[in-house]
């Protein structure tokens, strides 16, 4: 066979007689996939370092000699640890490889209980599959198998069945390499080797759910999903997680109208294939038995089921042309289309600008936010870009809670190329363990900490004299100066809007923006939202704009009687607003309260009208994540009872107030959004197949400093 012309960085190898070029150093287990072939594996995982623990991937290997003959190695090699090099010859289907695989599987099954009929993994189990395709049909071992606990709860979510473990180490490596908390390790050795937590303490990792998915056998199972279904009974549909603003791609498994589990779905732009525990285990509310299914109207102190038209009548009576006496508050899990239509209804028919989607203590107005004060966009960095940053400043709450996927990428950057990370926070965070400097400040002192670090960073740099002068009162200490070492060159800033829940949050954000602008890092500044579609709400203008009232003013307005009618869309102020008393007073006082919700909440007690609405899996819609990726979620179930998609409900109401052409599809709303706001153009529905589409980031108007905060 004539050799292929050599390209730089590529090597020529032969797999089962076929010559091909692959990148030098690529693992043979990956190269084989290029030919559409497969080597069976257990311990190898493409996103983790290979360890060669299970020997399932044995192949025959040889070297092509200059005279054209092939010198085979005397023993088989593990394909998952073997890097491709020139003239490598790999044989994956010889008699001896087949015999090796049989032998390995016979070994792995010595102690495996073979309880597939009662195992959650049965039907989607790599061990089952490999045994079926490559294993022996029977075993020569007649000895008694080892007996170990069958259902040991490692945590609220993860249950360990030790007998089934094949000691591949995927779970252990996940906690060490990916999530970084290293909460699992192998204890003991030999047949007694068990993946466990220290002293059997709680596996409280924020990413623990992933180990359930990557375990190639049924050893790590989900406590919630245990014995709930067999995989072939499930309907599996692609969806997007809405528990935070990262918008991870997930598989949504349901059965008989109930959500049974959430698994990660590969999306290299967002979550690779991981999920965080919030997302994986946080969708239980969809199964709640008491989700509202009919419109309810208050009659003499009780909420009674009613029909839509009565509800509409009452709403129109109280809201139409309500002007400044009506207001709307919105939660995080509302689609772009719903938000847009809600806003239109308020602006056009209620003539009210009183809308807000924010629930933090600090509610910066248009002129006070990052864009207003500093002329830069809130977001400049896409999630996948975080894995290639060289230096980063992480400020505020735990990044792993607020932005789990950014955390995983940043950790990867540290692990792969030693990215320098500085963490400023009031409490211990997940990122501390790989940070090159951690500045732990007292509660409420975040702003001072940022200012001191800024002063230290500027000492290392030229320019920005005005800022340096303004920072005079903040003298950096040795720790700040050490931390500033990491931020000498370009660095990325990441903070989440949850910092606005802190009294000094506004100043902190501004100080960060100043630091970014003053060091020419404005292009790397990020203030990410936290709620699922907060980004969408911000872009679509579901906020008071210049004239309206914000969340606080609306609640106060209700108490003072200036707001007569309030509409709560998918939000429970008791859970979101920091001042419970204020919420209670507001809801008690307001004359007419519409609670539109997909799950029962506390605000319903005060409602005049309760409108059932669809959860995200019950209606088509798009959501915008932190990196302005618009992702489409398709309806998976029929709505509960009489519930309808919110956009439809708003459309019907608007038709009552002003007969015009109705809207039939959410895609029409997206077209209207695009017509109103050019920047949404990439999000036209035909572009949203696959991983969605990204709207522009980093639209800066001209960076400025804002010094008043330092006075």
């Amino acid at each position, binding site marked *: 066979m004539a050799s292929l012309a050599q390209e730089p960085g590529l090597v020529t190898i032969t797999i089962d007689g076929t010559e091909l070029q692959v990148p030098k150093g690529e693992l043979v287990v990956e190269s084989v996939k290029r030919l559409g072939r497969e080597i069976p594996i257990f311990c190898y995982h493409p996103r983790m370092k290979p360890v060669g623990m299970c020997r399932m991937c044995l192949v025959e290997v040889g070297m092509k000699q200059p005279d054209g003959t092939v010198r085979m190695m005397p023993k088989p090699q593990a394909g998952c640890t073997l890097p491709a090099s020139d003239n490598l010859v790999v044989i994956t289907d010889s008699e001896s490889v087949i015999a090796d695989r049989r032998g390995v599987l016979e070994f792995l099954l010595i102690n495996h209980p073979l309880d597939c009929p009662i195992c959650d993994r049965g039907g989607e189990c790599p061990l089952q599959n490999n045994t079926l395709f490559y294993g022996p049909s029977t075993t020569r071992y007649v000895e008694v198998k*080892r007996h*170990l*606990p069958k*259902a*040991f*709860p*490692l*945590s*609220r979510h993860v*249950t360990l069945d*030790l007998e089934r473990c094949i000691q591949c180490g995927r779970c252990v490596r996940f*906690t*060490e390499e990916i999530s970084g*908390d*290293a*909460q*699992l*390790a*192998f*204890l*003991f*050795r030999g*047949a*007694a080797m068990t993946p*466990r*937590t*220290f*002293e*059997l*303490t*709680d596996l*409280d990792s924020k990413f623990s759910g992933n180990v359930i998915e990557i375990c190639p056998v049924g050893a790590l199972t989900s*406590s919630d999903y245990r014995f709930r279904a067999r995989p072939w009974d499930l309907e599996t549909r692609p969806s997007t997680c809405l528990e935070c603003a990262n918008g991870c791609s997930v598989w949504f498994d349901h059965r008989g109208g109930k959500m049974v589990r959430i698994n990660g779905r590969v999306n290299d732009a967002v979550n690779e294939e991981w999920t965080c525990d919030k997302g994986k285990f946080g969708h239980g509310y969809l199964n709640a038995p008491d989700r509202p299914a009919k419109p309810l109207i208050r009659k003499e102190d009780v909420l009674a089921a009613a029909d839509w038209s009565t509800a509409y009548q009452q709403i129109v009576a109280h809201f139409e042309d309500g002007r400044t006496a009506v207001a709307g508050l919105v939660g995080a899990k509302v689609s772009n289309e719903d938000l847009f239509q809600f806003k239109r209804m308020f602006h056009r028919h209620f003539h009210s600008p009183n809308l807000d989607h924010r629930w933090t203590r600090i509610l910066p107005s248009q002129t006070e936010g990052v864009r207003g004060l500093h002329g830069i966009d809130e977001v400049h960095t896409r999630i996948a870009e975080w894995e290639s940053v060289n230096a980063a400043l992480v400020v505020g709450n735990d990044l792993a809670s607020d932005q789990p996927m950014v955390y995983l990428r940043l950790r990867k950057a540290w692990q792969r190329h030693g990215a320098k990370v500085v963490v400023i926070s009031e409490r*211990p965070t997940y990122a501390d*363990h790989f940070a090159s400097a951690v500045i732990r400040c007292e509660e409420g002192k975040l702003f001072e900490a940022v200012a001191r670090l800024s002063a230290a960073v500027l000492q290392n740099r030229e320019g920005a004299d005005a800022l340096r002068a303004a920072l005079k009162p903040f003298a950096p200490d040795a720790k700040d100066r050490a931390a500033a070492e990491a931020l000498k060159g370009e660095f990325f800033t990441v903070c989440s809007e949850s910092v606005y829940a802190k009294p000094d949050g506004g100043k902190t954000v501004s100080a960060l923006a100043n630091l970014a602008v003053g060091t020419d890092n404005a292009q790397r500044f990020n203030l990410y939202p936290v709620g699922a579609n907060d980004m969408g709400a911000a872009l679509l203008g579901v906020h008071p704009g210049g004239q309206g009232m914000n969340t606080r003013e609306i609640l106060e307005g209700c108490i003072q009687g200036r707001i007569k009618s309030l509409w709560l869309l998918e939000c429970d102020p008791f859970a979101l607003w920091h001042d419970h008393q204020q919420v209670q007073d507001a809801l008690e006082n307001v004359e007419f309260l519409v609670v539109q919700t997909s799950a029962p909440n506390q605000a319903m007690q005060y409602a005049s009208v309760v409108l059932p609405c669809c959860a995200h899996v019950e209606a088509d819609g798009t959501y915008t994540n932190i990196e302005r990726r618009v992702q489409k979620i398709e309806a998976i179930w029929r709505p509960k009872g009489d519930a309808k998609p919110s956009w439809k409900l708003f459309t019907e109401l608007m038709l009552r107030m002003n007969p015009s052409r109705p809207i039939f599809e959410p895609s029409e709303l997206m077209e209207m959004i695009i017509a109103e706001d050019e920047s949404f153009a990439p999000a036209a529905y035909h572009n949203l197949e696959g991983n969605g589409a990204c709207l522009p980031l980093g639209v800066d108007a001209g960076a400025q400093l804002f010094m008043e905060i330092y006075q």
Partner: protein
Amino acid sequence: METIHLENSRGRPKAPNPEQVELKFSDQAVQELEALLTHYPDKKSAILPTLWIAQREYGGYLPPEAIAEVAVRLQRSYAEIEGVATFYTMYHVGHPVGRHLIEVCTCLTCQVCGAYRIAERLKAKLGIDFGETTEDGVFTLEEVECLDACDRAPVLQVSDAYIGPVDEAEIDALIEKLRSDPGSGTIRLADEIVKAQLHANEQRDIR
């Protein structure tokens, strides 16, 4: 093999917060650790000798607090340290061992030379089986594989010393001698291993 007891998952205890772990190493131990850390490129590499320090400091075995302290001092995860400690048989994890650890080699050469007779004798004399500790906490008996002293078969390892060849008649006297020794052989062994890791000048400075 250790059995694990099923418990209510909601009641699973939390791992200690690293900032709250009580650090009990003596000043000498801290100095030794600092010296040892200079021998290695990173803290991870120092896990084994640090476990020896801990085993000495915590009285001849490694209770969970010792594992936690090593983890905090080396900035590794608790589970990783526990995994290392449970891998090697010379670390005694979780349960205390006696002041004197008697290890009987029952591998081929010793067996041929009568190791089982010796073992039976020890068991009868101490009233314990392999893997057990006498009630007064003085003796722990273990069965081990080849101690690499076949020329002295049958051989016992008593904490930090090899004794062999032994015969049954000597057992009683040996036990009496050990019983009257107030020191702890297991702590002595740990101490000797720590010392062996330190360079001569470091040993001098710390003493």
